[in-house]
């Protein structure tokens, strides 16, 4: 029996013929026998060990085999025994019909008519029907008892309608129509009457039989339709589930569902939970009186542990007998989907923070770079203006230094060579009238030659009108002018020599020195060898040969620079014409002086110079302001 089952299973799952499966089955046990014979031991997983046992003290000839089952198998067997212990012992079924028969037999002992023998035949059919209804009750096997009890519980829980329907059937089956058995009489009349009564009773019995037959037919139909079919189906399902094992869910074939009779989809584990619901188990425990039994005791197949994501099942929750759990973490791996989601969320957060940090940093970098670059650009753009603003005073100083050097040279010369002074003195005597007001009274010759009438140059220009009062003094300026014009005319020709320049400077010094003492000059203007130095506006006023005054704004070492300066000033000073005048400085080279306009008086020139400087300053301020605004 078992052999045939296994062979069929093997042939079905592995697509083998019956012969091949049978051969394999035989070979398995033959292999075990051979293994025991060769190695004295055969260890079969999940079954046990077959060991040779020598019966005569180990040295005897006869060998026997001892089987040591595995612990798991022993546990399974003991679990079965535990179930057996708690199996419900049903009360002996007392058929009421039998009781009735026994009751009917009693009058038979007393002398029942043979007619009454038909009655048991009538009830035997109902008995058969009832026996069909409850065939399990007559079985003596404990296993079948257990199964029947389970089935009853299941029918109570899962199909309550069936239970309701079965109630009237039970009533009908139990209730037996009453049959009146008349007493036995001795007299013939009574016998006749009895015959008539018996006939009547027989008719009644026939009628009762008909009614019973009709009712039994109805009951049979009802049983077949409502009760037996679902019960049989459920029973078959329960049998299938209880008999199903690991091998039922196991197949190497690629498409086992199509080939096998029981598709694997139907044998899914979750569906098994619905076979025996927990309420049924509880009810069963209540009925049997055992509350300590676990819920899984009646489950036909133990559920596999829930996987924890790694697929191996090692790191899963294992349920113990006392409903406690332990989790096996060995070789456990994190769930890939969880890590992915976490990493994705973290990635988003990380990117957001990084982006914010990067943006703030980038903003700082960009703003600093723009500021720095703009400052550098502005400096580059306005470098000439800045250069002019910061270095023009130096140039003017240079001019003054130049002048001072010239004057220094002139100052040194008189000390070192008085003869020259004397020689110059003769010239100065000639030029005394030329320089006139510029003559320095410090020198003795000048003191002698220069008339004290000479007035300061500022007053001199208006004094050009005043000479009317001092007729004597009119002539010398003219002569001076004539001589000065000669020297000025010589300068553009660049034919000056050092000696000449020295002489000129000495004469200029000598001529200008008296003017320093002049108190009529406006504040901030001092007389110099070259002309009048305006310390406020940082310019010099030079008297031309024509007697007019010009503004010497600056001096440059190249003509281009001087022309550039003139053009820049002419741009914001309309009506002011500039000219360049070359002057040989000897070792220092040729310098070009930027001069602007011709004015009749120093005061007029000073006003114009002040206007020029103020305009230049406002222009520069506007530029600086625009730079600041731009930044």
């Amino acid at each position, binding site marked *: 029996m*078992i*052999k045939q*089952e*296994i062979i069929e*299973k*093997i042939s079905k*799952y*592995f697509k083998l013929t019956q012969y*091949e499966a049978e*051969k*394999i*089955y*035989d*070979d*398995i*046990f*033959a*292999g*075990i*026998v*051979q*293994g*025991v*014979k*060769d*190695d004295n*031991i*055969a*260890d*079969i*997983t*999940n*079954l*046990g060990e*077959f060991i*040779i046992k020598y019966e005569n003290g180990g040295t005897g*000839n*006869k*060998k*026997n*085999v*001892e*089987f040591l*089952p595995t612990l798991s*198998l*022993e546990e*399974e*067997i*003991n679990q*079965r*025994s535990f179930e057996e212990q708690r199996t419900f012992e049903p009360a002996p079924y007392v058929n009421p019909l039998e009781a009735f028969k026994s009751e009917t037999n009693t009058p038979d002992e007393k002398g029942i008519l043979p007619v009454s023998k038909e009655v048991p035949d009538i009830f035997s059919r109902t008995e058969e029907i009832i026996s069909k209804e409850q065939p399990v009750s007559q079985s003596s096997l404990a*296993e079948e008892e257990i199964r029947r009890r389970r089935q009853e519980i299941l029918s109570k829980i899962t199909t309550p309608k069936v239970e309701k329907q079965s109630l009237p059937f039970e009533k009908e089956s139990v209730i037996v129509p009453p049959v009146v058995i008349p007493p036995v009489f001795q007299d013939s009349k009574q016998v006749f009457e009895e015959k008539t009564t018996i006939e009547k009773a027989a008719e009644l019995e026939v009628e009762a039989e008909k009614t019973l037959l009709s009712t039994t037919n109805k009951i049979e139909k009802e049983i077949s339709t409502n009760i037996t079919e679902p019960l049989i189906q459920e029973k078959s399902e329960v049998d299938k589930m209880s*008999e199903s*094992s*690991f*091998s039922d869910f*196991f197949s*190497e074939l690629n498409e086992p569902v199509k080939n096998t009779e029981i598709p694997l989809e139907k044998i899914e584990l979750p569906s098994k939970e619905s076979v025996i619901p927990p309420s049924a188990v509880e009810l069963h425990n209540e009925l049997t009186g055992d509350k300590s039994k676990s819920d899984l005791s009646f489950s036909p197949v133990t559920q596999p542990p829930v996987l924890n994501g790694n697929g191996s099942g090692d790191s899963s929750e294992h349920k113990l007998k006392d409903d406690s759990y332990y989790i096996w973490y060995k070789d456990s791996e994190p769930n890939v989907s969880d890590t992915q989601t976490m990493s994705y969320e973290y990635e988003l957060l990380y990117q957001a923070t990084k982006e914010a940090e990067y943006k703030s940093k980038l903003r700082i970098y960009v703003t600093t770079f723009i500021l720095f670059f703009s400052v550098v650009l502005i400096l580059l753009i306005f470098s000439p203006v800045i250069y002019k603003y910061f270095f023009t005073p130096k140039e003017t100083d240079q001019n003054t230094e130049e002048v001072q050097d010239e004057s220094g040279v002139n100052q040194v010369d008189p000390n070192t060579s008085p003869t020259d002074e004397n020689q110059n003195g003769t010239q100065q005597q000639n030029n005394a009238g030329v320089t006139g007001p510029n003559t320095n009274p410090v020198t003795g010759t000048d003191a002698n030659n220069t008339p004290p009438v000479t007035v300061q140059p500022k007053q001199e220009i208006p004094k050009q009108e005043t000479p009317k009062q001092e007729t004597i003094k009119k002539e010398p300026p003219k002569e001076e002018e004539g001589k000065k014009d000669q020297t000025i005319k010589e300068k553009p020709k660049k034919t000056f020599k050092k000696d000449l320049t020295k002489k000129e400077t000495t004469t200029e010094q000598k001529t200008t020195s008296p003017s320093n003492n002049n108190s009529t000059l406006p504040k901030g203007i001092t007389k110099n060898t070259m002309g009048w130095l305006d310390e406020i506006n940082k310019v010099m006023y030079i008297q031309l040969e024509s007697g007019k005054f010009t503004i010497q704004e600056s001096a440059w070492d190249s003509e281009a620079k001087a022309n550039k300066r003139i053009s820049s000033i002419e741009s914001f000073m309309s009506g002011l014409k500039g000219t360049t005048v070359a002057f040989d400085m000897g070792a220092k080279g040729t310098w070009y002086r930027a001069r602007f306009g011709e004015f009749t008086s120093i005061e007029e020139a000073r006003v114009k110079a002040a206007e020029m400087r103020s305009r230049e300053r406002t222009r520069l301020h506007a530029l600086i302001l625009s730079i600041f605004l731009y930044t």
Partner: protein
Amino acid sequence: MNTIDLINKLAVSHNITTGRAEMIISITVERLIEKLKKDGETKVENFGIFRIMRKSSEQNYMKMDEPVQLSKNVLAFEPDTAFIESLNSK
């Protein structure tokens, strides 16, 4: 001899994979145990009979605070005569 040897032997003799052989053996053993649990006795031809036998507890008296030792079932194996003969034959 153990299960692996049996698997290899079966795979070689029937020209099947070791995986299949392992599955066949496991199915056979499992079905055998199921039958044994169900009927209490399983007979394998030319091999022997597996039988579940009741073994009473050996405890004569019970100590205080000690769990009661219950009687348990024991799996017995009765080898077939063919098995014994094959063992004893040289």
